């Protein structure tokens, strides 16, 4: 991890200098602990504790209402077993994989980096306009965004059909996964764009300059100068975006998981089960499975980006 996130210079430096460098401000362990304490305390109380509680709920038949709300029973792995023996769960998982790969990895990360790279040396209104629009798409509340996209993709009066002169074309019904992938790319690109924008700002211009003078093409500059510098950011970005996309239930507002479950990704599945059906125990169990999948994904990213060293 440390290797992956540290810029290459630090790693290349030799033992003595490195030890001195890593704690340049003379923090020491005690003070470092004090610096981290407020954050860790909040995390412990408001994150770790409730999250463990959710994991426990997944082992019960707890419901929002009814007898199982008054006296929840410990059912062990029953929820997990009934989840994995349910074919709709597996189709949801497969849809989620498509959703994450399509909208997060290819869509948001790709487009986000592309915009950040295109605009890296620019100042002024054009940059601000592009960035502002991208961020607006990200920051508008989902309740309103869903209306925007229905207005765009609607079969009868949708803007897309009006622009393409394709009346009665119904993307949300005929291509529900593609629709929510494009939607989520639109929705979430801002984060990657901002992260890469900030990361690219930390690439010393002098390095790029010397690469350019040495006749490196744009792609070579990217690969040899930029990429090593922002490798840690790429890892973080991929990890976070994947994690969030796995848990994102906004597609529900666009397609309600339909038609016939064709866009019911896991987070929508949990939403339907837990909030609409009140089956919180089962919903928590599915959340646990999502957590395990995320763990696998995290390990995969770590290996991928570390092995390139």
């Amino acid at each position, binding site marked *: 991890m440390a290797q992956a996130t540290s810029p290459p210079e630090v790693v290349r430096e030799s033992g003595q200098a490195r030890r001195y460098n890593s704690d340049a401000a003379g923090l020491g362990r005690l*003070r470092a602990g004090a610096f981290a304490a407020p954050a860790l305390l909040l995390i412990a109380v408001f994150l770790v504790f409730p999250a463990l509680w959710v994991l426990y709920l997944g082992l019960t038949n707890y419901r*929002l209402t*009814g007898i199982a709300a008054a006296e929840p029973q410990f059912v062990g792995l029953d929820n997990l077993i009934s989840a994995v023996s349910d074919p709709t769960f597996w189709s949801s998982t497969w849809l989620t994989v498509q959703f994450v790969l399509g909208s997060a990895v290819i869509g948001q990360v790709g487009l986000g980096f592309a915009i950040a790279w295109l605009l890296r040396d620019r100042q002024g209104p054009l940059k601000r306009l592009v960035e502002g629009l991208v961020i607006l798409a990200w920051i508008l509340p989902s309740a309103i965004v869903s209306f925007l996209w229905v207005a765009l993709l609607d079969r009868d009066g949708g803007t897309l059909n009006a622009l393409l002169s394709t009346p009665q074309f119904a993307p949300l019904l005929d291509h529900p996964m593609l629709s929510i992938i494009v939607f989520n790319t639109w929705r979430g690109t801002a984060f990657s764009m901002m992260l890469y924008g900030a990361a690219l700002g930390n690439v010393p211009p002098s390095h790029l300059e010397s690469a350019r003078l040495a006749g490196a093409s744009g792609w070579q500059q990217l690969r040899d100068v930029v990429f090593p510098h922002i490798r840690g950011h790429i890892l973080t970005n991929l990890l976070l975006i994947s994690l969030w996309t796995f848990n994102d239930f906004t597609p529900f507002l666009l397609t309600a998981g*339909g038609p016939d479950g064709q866009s019911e990704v896991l987070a929508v599945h949990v939403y339907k089960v837990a909030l609409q059906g*009140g089956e919180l125990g089962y919903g928590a169990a599915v959340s646990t499975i999502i957590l395990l999948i995320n763990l696998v994904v995290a390990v995969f990213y770590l290996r991928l980006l570390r092995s390139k060293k």
Partner: protein
Amino acid sequence: MALRKRSMGVVAVLAASVVGLAACGQSSGGSGDAIELTITQNAIAGGKNAAGADFIANWVIPKFEAAQKAKGKDVKVKFVPSGVDDEQYKTKLSLDLKSGKGADVMDIDSIWAGEFAEAGYLKPLPDLVGAEADSWDGWAQIPEAVQGMAMYNGKKYALPVGTDGRVLYFNKTLFQKAGLPADWQPTSWQEILDAGTKLKSSGVPVPIQINAGTAMGEATSMQGVLPLLVGAGGEVQQNGKWTGASQPLKDALGLYQKIYGGGLGDPKLQQEAKGRDKSFQQFAEGKIGILLEGDYFWRSVINPAEGVAKMADRDQSVGYAMIPAMEPGKGIKGQDFVSMSGGSLRAVNPNSEHPKEAFELATFTLSPEALKEETKDGNVRITPRTDVNKDILAGEPLMTFISEKVLPVTAFRPPVAVYPQVSVALQEATAAVVSGTAPDQAAADYQKKLEGIVGGAGNIAS
């Protein structure tokens, strides 16, 4: 060194303030001897059910406080508005009640009564408030079927707030063009299909809209498969046993197949996330011939003054008819016509510190004066009381129609905790038929799912 100390101090203060913030939560605004009551509804001024929220805030609270003062009691009432999706409102109520909190008086959907009672979120009224619960003079005015919504296992858990009914709306202008009568009243499903065929050949884009699919949620059950099911003589649950792949269900799904497989309806609309909204807009634009909906559609959707899909000529161009059984006499209890009804309940929170006063407040909101005040200025709805309905519905032909013709033949959903899941399974069955599955197959799949939901084949009537 001094500087260093200060920096440590800042961190310590920050850490301490985080802990401190966690400790000081809400401020308690308790005051002297006054009894404080809260009342909540899924209503909010300026938003969902705004009229109801305004009525509580501007009429009920001052009047009730004054009436209590006259009796020498100092009572303060606060309205807690909500106004979100019913499922989210239900979630919040459940969490509140589970933690021993919540408003003293709260409105719930009648369909939640069973699951709330089973969870201990509601208690039988007599246990909470004593003999007053049964001796309230309002009960004598509430029809038995409406009282039934507030009962679970033979006990009264709340006060019914009102009810509704479902009818077939039709566009008289389109009917005229298709050569159909303005006082249309089908007596069998076949007559609905025949009208649909005529509408179609006269160029109506969507002759019939009967909700189907999962995207519309409970609207598919209440304005779709359930009225058809009772029309075919079946009920979703009868005498404690659930109905599986029965003939009535196959018949109901068969009607869906005839409508959506036969080009009389728009199958795609049933799959759209905003399909119901769009069906309203399309009816208002004169694109839909026949639509099965509740009285809510008339009052709040195509209302020429404040509907979400206004129809300026609603009173002239929109007709309504009772929902026929499959064939005369084929409905439940041998009926010729059928409908489905729901409604809200006003419950007293078992956690209330002042249950008697809370009950008084609840009954106060259901007194004839209060109901008349609430329903004036075009806010007419069907109240639980027959004495009030007689007066307020007089100038409202549709509401009178529902109250007098539809309510006597209507049916209610089973108020049990698993109903929402059963309902989703029914919606999935209609979705399957609309996208081409044979009704028998969809019914068999429904039965399979039902077994998983209700705990085995033993709970399903064979």
